[in-house]
């Protein structure tokens, strides 16, 4: 079943390469997205799929899988409308690439072997490069080059980290040398400590580059800014969650070896730095998509802080992962609509979006309120849980710093978003109109985030608790 989930997007990608009709090719995306969502639902609901040593699902990957699949399905519906607008650019490359990207992400989520995980994450980099290059102008070349180079170097370092962990097993003796996650976790106490620590640091740096934790985030504003809205949504909501999952695997390993405290401190430090840098760069940011990119850096920071604190905050971080992915989807898609309508994403041209495009502008504004953690949206709940975890842990100053930075983010982001949305309606030069396919996904995402804010369903709560528990396993 899981194998089918990974392989069928590849088959559809092949089909997309062969199909000669533009519309049909576009429609392949929502069809496969929906199918993927259904299959993922069955897999996640199923009892236990960790039978194979290579792929399998545990509580963490179930959570990430369902979120990613949901986000992908929404973006796929949006993609039909978007690709209709961009007939000049064609969809011969982007549709297969999107499908390969889906397959690679699923593989990365399901991988139970560090080598396989690494391969899958590397494949997501390669499959997403053409997506970022979709607009084929100077700026998108620059963004793609930075993305490829930085992420490739990051991924090379992650490989080195994996090798170090294998070497830790070799030096540690008394255990089978394998990169299979369960074997490693079972024998974690025998791993040679210095090599394990070095391996963790390299994994954190490598996958941290992919996830966009400061100070390795510099590709993020460029790539998200230049990529089409739905690609931005997939990168910011899906790929970052996958990279975070990869880091969590390393944290799991460190915790199993009894060195969880060190891993948590490293995560906490990088998280706080991300939050700080993102807050600084969000103030007076004149570009709405770059603003969203920095917001992504900020939320990656919050995730890292949550796991770094542990306990209740880990539960909060898991919830935050779900909320962040959905809200980012909503924001990037509506921002994409605004950019299409105004033919610009800079504040010099974009204003009065609420009056000009009531639905997209409204969703964008509401999404801003959601992402900055205003009640009653889900992010309020998750950020509140993380803060409760921090204060409950007695780390008063860290909590205070985080609240301060969140306030700064709210003000900085608010200035830009309000300038873009408020004001007199403008006469648009483009022929863009909000259509059903273009607004339904962001609306649904927003609705879900709203629901998560007022009511947390029992199965989801259980899944979150199980996922958090996986990270808390002490030897």
């Amino acid at each position, binding site marked *: 079943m899981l194998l089918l989930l990974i392989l069928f997007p590849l088959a559809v990608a092949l089909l997309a390469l062969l199909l000669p009709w533009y519309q049909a090719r576009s429609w392949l995306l929502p069809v496969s997205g929906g199918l993927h969502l259904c299959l993922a639902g069955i897999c996640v609901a199923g009892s236990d799929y960790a039978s194979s040593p290579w792929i399998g699902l545990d509580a963490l990957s179930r959570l990430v899988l369902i979120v990613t699949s949901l986000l992908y399905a929404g973006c796929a519906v949006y993609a039909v409308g978007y690709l209709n607008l961009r007939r000049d650019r064609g969809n011969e490359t982007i549709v297969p690439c999107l499908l390969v990207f889906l397959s690679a992400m699923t593989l990365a989520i399901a991988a139970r072997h560090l080598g*396989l995980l690494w391969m899958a994450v590397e494949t997501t980099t*390669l499959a997403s490069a053409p997506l970022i*290059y979709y607009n084929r102008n*100077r700026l998108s*070349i620059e963004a793609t080059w930075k993305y490829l180079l930085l992420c*490739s170097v990051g991924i090379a370092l992650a*490989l080195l980290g994996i090798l170090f962990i*294998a070497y830790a097993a*070799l*030096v540690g003796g008394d255990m089978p040398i394998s990169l299979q996650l369960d074997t490693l976790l079972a024998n974690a106490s025998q791993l040679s400590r210095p090599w394990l620590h070095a391996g963790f640091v390299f994994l954190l740096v490598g996958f941290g580059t992919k996830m966009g934790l400061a100070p390795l985030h510099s590709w993020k504003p460029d790539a998200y800014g230049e990529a089409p809205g739905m690609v931005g949504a997939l990168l910011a909501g899906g790929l970052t969650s996958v990279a975070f999952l990869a880091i969590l695997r390393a944290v799991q390993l460190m915790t199993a070896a009894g060195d969880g405290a060190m891993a948590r401190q490293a995560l906490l430090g990088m998280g706080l730095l991300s939050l700080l840098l993102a807050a600084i760069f969000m103030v007076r940011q004149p570009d709405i998509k770059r603003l969203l990119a920095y917001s992504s850096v900020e939320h990656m920071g919050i995730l890292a802080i949550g796991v770094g604190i542990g306990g209740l905050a880990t539960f909060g971080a898991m919830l935050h992962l779900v909320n962040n992915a959905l809200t980012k989807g909503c924001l990037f898609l509506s921002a994409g609509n605004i950019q299409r309508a105004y033919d610009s994403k800079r504040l010099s041209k974009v204003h009065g979006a609420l009056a000009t495009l009531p639905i997209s502008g409204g969703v964008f504004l509401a999404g801003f309120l959601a992402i900055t953690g205003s009640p009653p949206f889900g992010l309020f709940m998750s950020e509140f849980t993380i803060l409760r975890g921090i204060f409950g842990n007695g780390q008063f100053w860290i909590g205070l710093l985080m609240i301060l930075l969140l306030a700064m983010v709210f003000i900085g982001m608010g200035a830009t978003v309000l300038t873009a949305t408020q004001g007199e309606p403008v006469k648009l030069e483009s022929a863009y109109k909000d259509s059903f396919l273009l607004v339904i996904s962001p609306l649904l995402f927003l609705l879900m985030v709203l629901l998560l804010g007022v009511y947390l369903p029992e199965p989801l709560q259980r899944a979150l608790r199980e996922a958090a528990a996986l990270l808390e396993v002490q030897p």
Partner: protein
Amino acid sequence: MMELINPLLLAVILINFYTLGSARLVACIRVVAIQGALLALLPLLSHGMTFHAMLLAAEAFCFKGVVIPWLLLRAIRRVRIRREMEPIVGFVPTLILGVLTTVGAFLFADLLPLAPEHHDGMFVPTALATMFSGFLLLITRRKAITQILGYLMLENGIFIFAVLLSAAMPVMVEAGILLDLLVGVFVMGIVVNQISREFSTINTERLTALKE
């Protein structure tokens, strides 16, 4: 067989130095190709003529020694560039830095808690030194091609370390490593072509429109 390993690793280090000190792109690509081909011998020398080692060697030779350099040479023939002009840090300073980091790698490797059978030998220091050299190239050069070469050297360094472990790693992962490397460079090559078409140069310093 084992006594050939040290001269081979020494040659790898010398190639690092040459690449750091040379301005001629064609020559740099060629020596990095030679480096890849030399590294392909490494699994054979250290693990003997097993099927696993031969497979790894064949893959490394094809990709690191032949295919990727060929792609890069084709790319620079198309954009007609010969030299790395005005690197961010000059050639002699990078060379000095490269030697210093190499020396540092040798001293540092003695402090590492290595497995007893790896304590002598030059595997670990050479791997570290090659990675450092790759990083130096990545940081100090402006041409996209040279940055790709730096990335290749980084991968070569990791490969040297991986050979120590190749008994522990199933073939599938190794195949993936090389394949990913190939595809990565291929994609980068396409991007380089696009850069040259748009900017009529492959200097990455022109890529500075996106900043705060």
